[in-house]
């Protein structure tokens, strides 16, 4: 059955994505142990894994990004060493964090949101709001 084959392929794809996310997770743990929060955040936000895949992949990837976001202590320092190309994707994850309703996560995301908006401008928020295709 063609449908069955497609489904299988999709599942296989999802597995591959999950594996890649797991690798990423390990790498981030290592970076955090070395006190490199910026590198960890960059690694978390890098790649296209975030955008593709099903809800399960997105959730798995969110956990990884969440880990990197929560490890940030010096918000100003991290954001000033983060390259502008990461701003848009980080904003998407901050909103995902705010949507969780979890107190510590929201606190941290709000802190970052404030500083990120200062740096990246309202255009960054607009791009998050209007992007209905590449959601995280």
């Amino acid at each position, binding site marked *: 059955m063609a449908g069955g084959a497609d489904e299988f392929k999709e599942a296989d794809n999802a597995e591959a994505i999950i594996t890649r996310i797991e690798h990423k997770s390990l790498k981030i743990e290592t970076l955090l142990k070395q006190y490199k929060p910026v590198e960890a955040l960059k690694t978390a936000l890098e790649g296209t894994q975030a955008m593709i895949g099903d809800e399960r992949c997105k959730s798995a990837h969110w956990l990884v990004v969440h880990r990197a976001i929560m490890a940030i202590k010096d918000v100003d320092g991290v954001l000033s060493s983060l390259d502008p190309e990461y701003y848009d994707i980080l904003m998407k994850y901050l909103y995902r964090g705010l949507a969780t309703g979890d107190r510590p996560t929201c606190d941290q995301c709000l802190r970052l949101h404030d500083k990120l908006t200062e740096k990246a*401008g309202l*255009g*960054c928020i607009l791009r998050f709001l*209007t*992007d209905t295709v590449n959601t995280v």
Partner: protein
Amino acid sequence: MAAISVHQFAHSITSHAWSPDKSMVALCPNNSEVHIYKLVEDKWEKAHVLQKHDQVISGIDWSRRSNRIVTASHDRNSYVWNLEGSEWVPTLVILRLNRAALCVQWSPEENKFAVGSGAKTVCICYYEQENNWWVSKLIRKRHDSSVTSVSWHPNNILLATTSTDGKCRVFSTFIKGVDAKDSKKATSSDFKFGELIVQLDLSSSWTFGVKWSPSGNTLAYVGHNSMIYFVDDVGPSPLAQNVVFRDLPLRDVLFVSEKMVIGVGFDCNPMVFAADERGIWSFIRYLGEQEVVSSGSSYGSQFSEAFGKLYGQSKHGASNDAVETSKPHENCINSIMPMSEQGTLIRRFSTSGLDGRIVLWDLENVPDLLELLVR
């Protein structure tokens, strides 16, 4: 300073257009009328009021050579206005729409005009001599949502549109009997009327303000996601670039040269974009005064000095509509129109917006931008 004068004409302006000699401006003060103001001794005086539409006028265009005004309105109709003696005489154009008309533009040869509408349709209108009547020909079933802007290619055939479905499209508007065969020299194959030449799917949100560069080689349009798109080689294999900017989205753009674009929108301050030698587009700076002037503080203070002087002048000119303010625009700017053409370089242009003002800008006094313009 780039802003040379600011005039408060109404509470809000939906659209404006200049007479061929730039001595008069037609604007819609957010109602069903068009007001034409004439500059008399440094003072804008209301010369004509065009009343015929039933609802808000969304688009005005004034043709350069034939001195005709076309208006498009939410009442789903257009009028072509001809100056006969001292009166503007309207001719009704039945667009055959079931939703509001949103934008209008004369073609370069002024034998056609295009109307974008909320009915997911573009109307191409042309004059039929035999019947003494403007005929509307529709491009239907091509847009998935409202058509927010239309722009004519210099060849008088190609028309670019933007839509709230997030796409920018280019159509052929070749009409037998209106367009001569040889005017299609720019296109290799024979395109029929309404044929989709290219569809650009770059934005995930509403798109606005499409414009062709003076040569017709580059297309620019904006997305509601604070991005501006530049497209070269419009055809089977277009080359697209998108430029992200940090502030609120744009609504309209104007090519002042092949390599320089002014964008206006919700940020109330026009933005300048330019392409470098390799053709890579980037945001240069704001046109209006900014708290932080990147090119040095002495530069900034010099500017603000000139700014104050000019405002003083316009106030001295005893014109009741001149405004004293620190910002030329205080609400969303929704249209930008060229005012001078020296070859393909536009140094002077005007902007109008929801704050009811028309601001005239001149790049002549802005050394860094003038350098970019004339390079």
